[in-house]
């Protein structure tokens, strides 16, 4: 299983991530460069929206808190899938 220290580091990264992904980004008016290019060129991003968590936001939550929760969801899913994979490989052997 994941080491406690590794988990702590990951959670810490997620906790401070809104500072960079939301606060600083708003301060300098950041948008994903390729998204800006798309907007300028009139390219449309997919009209189909398949996820409620688009761009690391959680509906109804302020963007900073949403960013953290989205981060935790992502980390949780990856650890879940990852360990499933580990289990499958281990059982195969």
């Amino acid at each position: 299983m994941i080491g406690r220290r590794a988990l702590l580091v990951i959670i810490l990264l997620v906790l401070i991530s809104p500072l960079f992904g939301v606060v600083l980004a708003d301060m300098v008016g950041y948008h994903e460069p390729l998204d800006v290019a798309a907007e300028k060129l009139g390219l449309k991003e997919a009209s189909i929206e398949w996820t409620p968590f688009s761009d690391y936001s959680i509906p109804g939550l302020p963007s900073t808190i949403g960013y953290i929760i989205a981060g935790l969801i992502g980390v949780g899913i990856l650890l879940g899938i990852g360990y499933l994979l580990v289990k499958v490989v281990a059982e195969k052997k």
Partner: protein
Amino acid sequence: MHIPDGFLDPVTIAITYMAFIAYLVVALTRIKVSREKIALVPVLAAGIFAAQMLNWPIPGGTSLHFVGGALAGILLGPFLGFLTLFLVLFIQCLVFHDGGITALGANVLNMAVIDVLVGYGIYKLVTSTLGDNRKSRLIGAFLGGWIGITLAGIACGLEIGFSPSFPYGVLITVPVMGIWHLILGVVEGVITALVVDYLYPRLPQLLLMQQSLSEGSQE
């Protein structure tokens, strides 16, 4: 570097998807590793995902964030490293719409194949040329991270440049993506070197380089 939907034309989408699926199949058949090593995939995937959320905005509307492909390649090799980045990109795309679904093939190709392979290759080259010591590991990981992300950026420029859906051609997209990633990639190199340097003495069992090199010479 995550290409959104709408940038790529059907031909580019088809080619990049085919390339990434081919690599995925090869990776799945080639993965022969110890349980200890595969146990690192989830941790590294979660760590890279979290690290990618730390955007460093740069006034003027751009930003950089750590990609981590070279790091995964150095730590886990070209196949497990690929699998790690693939998981990250897949979840980013499906759950957070970060990177388009039509561009998933291209994004996987750039960050999970090119960045991983280049990082792995350069690290291996440097550590086998200079000898396996701390200095060569630092240099190898730095160059791997730096050149890996630069080439991934150039590949991204090629894909959107060749795609008729995107109005600028490769003569513009490749230099723009290449130069930006060449400059910002220094940071990727530094982080890659620091993480490898930190993990090396702590997680000897995953240090593929030493392991696979010595295994290779025994065979």
